[in-house]
């Protein structure tokens, strides 16, 4: 039976198992919105297209399923770009559909025309312009396949309006035929053997796990390998939750704001096992002095990640989960394990020593000013760690990474690669939509939150009990911190004390607003917030303006050169 392209589009999404799409209407996608009117597909109406993409992103990070977005041509599409670039940098599977002007107007500077395929080419895993109605279904199929397999990422599909109106036979392909796209899933057995041998011959091993562990659902395997061999483990920001934060082998995050212990261990290790991580400059510090004594094993599904920034001794291209499974099998059959573990005693003592000398810490203010770290600790206590935390960007992000313990994957959601202010709140909405029964808390900065504050209306509309905890320091805190350390305290344009009354703002949107001004109010506010089940709650914590994030490795310095509290 023939249907118009817009109906076909929705049928295809249903075939893909999509239950929710995030979007905002406009001229070029009117046919889709008409078809949505009586379709079983749930559509979340956002207030800004950037919000839609971040929500889909939060949905994807919380569930592992691809997030789906529909926006109109021109400004709708360009508004989505920051969201797409954010997902691209963190390898998040999204399929973003943009309306486009009718085929015969493309290239004419038509009303609301933008070359979105051109604009997003460098920030999508792949993108398409549907030029022929007969390609629509194949392209949708391929888009989902490419977004979710291999190293995941956003795929954009630009659909001209005439194609949405064209009559098409519904025939969704059940397979893709992409001979030029064949990700490597299984690791090379010889390389895996080499890696295991190298690990078992080391005396000071460290596991350095990244977001790839979470993307490939390999947290169980990672834990099994680390605990079986008792290897001290650190994760990147993106890897938080990929290894249990409360496990005794966990050293905390490494890198610019990593723990003393993790950074020292990486600096002194003789065998670094990088799992689904990409040696980002925020992680390595000065690259020539990163893990200077280590032989390096690097497991990654993306060959371009390997040997990009550091020389690697044993590269293994493959899906992290598969490779770890294969490694475990070898380890289980190996006679060397008992001796290896016995020899680690000294290393464990050393690691413990580093851990004990400089733990993450902060000083309470004796006059009762709220310390932002304290708020995070209280949120952890109140939820017993059973929550999904999203963050904005800046100091709030780092404190959320440091002072909350993430035991499970997909419970820490943050824009790591692009560092997008305005990500955290819509991402929290997306996560809450995906998992309505979970406690979802967006830890926010007062600056970042204002970049997508309009989505409060979305959260109210869908009665989402998402919690926002603003660490309100009335500054662009992280930038202020750099000015304090590196620019002689010349606080140029980082004061944002002219700001809305966030409690009133929440109320104006129909949400609940709460405020804590002193330390002793923190717990009460959190408790109140947790009681609200039918709408968003915004908690405004007035925190100490001059609190800094420690440790800190100044940009371009080696990891061992940390500034400590």
């Amino acid at each position: 039976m023939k249907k118009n392209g817009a109906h076909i589009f929705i049928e295809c999404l249903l075939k893909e198992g999509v239950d929710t799409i995030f979007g905002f209407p406009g001229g070029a996608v009117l046919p889709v919105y008409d078809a949505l009117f009586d379709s079983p597909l749930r559509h979340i109406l956002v207030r800004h297209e950037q919000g839609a993409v971040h929500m889909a992103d939060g949905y994807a990070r919380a569930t592992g399923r691809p997030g789906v977005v529909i926006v109109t041509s021109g400004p709708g599409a360009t508004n989505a770009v920051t969201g797409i670039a954010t997902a691209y940098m963190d390898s998040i599977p999204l399929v973003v559909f943009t309306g486009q002007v009718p085929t015969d107007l493309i290239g004419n500077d038509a009303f609301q025309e933008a070359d979105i395929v051109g604009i997003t080419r460098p920030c999508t895993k792949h993108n398409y312009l549907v030029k022929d109605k007969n390609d629509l279904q194949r392209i949708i199929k391929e888009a989902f396949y490419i977004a979710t397999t291999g190293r995941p990422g956003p795929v954009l599909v630009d659909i001209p309006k005439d194609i949405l109106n064209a009559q098409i036979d519904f025939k969704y392909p059940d397979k893709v035929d992409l001979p030029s796209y064949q990700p490597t899933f299984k690791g090379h057995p010889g390389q895996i053997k080499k890696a295991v041998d190298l690990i078992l011959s080391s005396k000071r091993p460290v596991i350095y796990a990244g977001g790839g562990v979470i993307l490939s659902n390999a947290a169980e395997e990672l834990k099994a390998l680390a605990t079986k061999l008792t290897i001290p483990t650190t994760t990147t920001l993106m890897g938080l939750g990929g290894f249990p934060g409360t496990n005794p082998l966990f050293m905390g995050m490494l890198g610019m704001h990593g723990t003393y212990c993790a950074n020292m261990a990486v600096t002194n290790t003789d065998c670094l096992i990088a799992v689904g991580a990409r040696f980002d400059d925020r992680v390595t510090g000065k690259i020539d002095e990163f893990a200077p004594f280590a032989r390096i094993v690097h497991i990654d599904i993306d060959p371009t990640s390997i040997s990009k920034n550091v020389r690697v001794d044993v590269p293994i291209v493959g899906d992290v989960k598969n490779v770890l499974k294969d490694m475990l099998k070898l380890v289980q059959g190996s006679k060397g394990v008992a001796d290896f573990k016995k020899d680690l005693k000294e290393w464990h003592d050393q690691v413990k020593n580093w851990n004990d000398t400089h733990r993450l810490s902060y000083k309470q203010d004796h006059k009762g000013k709220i310390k932002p770290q304290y708020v995070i600790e209280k949120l952890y206590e109140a939820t017993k760690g059973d929550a999904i935390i999203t963050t904005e960007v800046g100091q709030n992000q780092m404190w959320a990474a440091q002072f909350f313990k993430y035991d499970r994957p997909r419970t820490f959601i943050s824009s790591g690669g692009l560092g997008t202010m305005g990500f955290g709140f819509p991402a929290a909405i997306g996560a809450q939509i995906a998992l309505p029964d979970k406690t979802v808390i967006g830890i926010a900065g007062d600056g970042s939150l204002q970049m997508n504050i309009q989505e409060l209306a979305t959260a109210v509309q869908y009665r989402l009990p998402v919690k926002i905890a603003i660490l309100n320091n009335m500054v662009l805190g992280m930038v202020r911190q750099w000015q304090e350390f590196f620019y002689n305290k010349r606080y140029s344009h980082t004061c944002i004390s002219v700001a809305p009354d966030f409690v009133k703002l929440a109320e104006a949107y129909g949400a609940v607003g709460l405020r804590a001004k002193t330390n002793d109010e923190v717990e009460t506010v959190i408790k109140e917030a947790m009681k609200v089940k039918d709408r968003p709650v915004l908690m405004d914590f007035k925190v100490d303006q001059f609190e800094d994030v420690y440790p800190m490795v100044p940009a371009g310095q080696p990891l061992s050169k940390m500034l400590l509290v």
Partner: protein
Amino acid sequence: MRHTISVLVANEFGVLSRISGLFSGRGFNIESLSVAETLDPTVSRMTIVTRGDDKVIEQINKQLNKLINVIKVHDFIGEEHIERELALIKVTSTPESWAEILSIVDIFRAKVVDVSPRSYTIETTGDEEKIAAITELFRPFGIKEIVRTGKIAMARSPKQK
């Protein structure tokens, strides 16, 4: 080190900009690039001449392979292969220089493809050295314009013993 890399790509719109965008976005350089259809009209071949140390070349190869539309990447380095490019050279000519120009054309087995009272346009193909050599010889006469295609390359067939 200079590398000649042959890339088979799906013959679809936008592929060229994906590749050139990859090079510019990641700061890789392109010395020359030529593209045309292969025997299979759904596939095009691009021949890219680029420069970089081993690490950069490894990234170029991997990044090219990562593009969804790229079918195959082949680096000719260290392999017997034939490289050719074509150049059109418009040389100033006077009645006194005709003979000399024609003899150079002859020696290089080039071709005169257009003649006007003041200039000869010469077509020549060959590897880089040959094109450089003929250009040098024409230079004293005055080169009005030169257009080159960029390099194409093909592996030599294995020689039978």
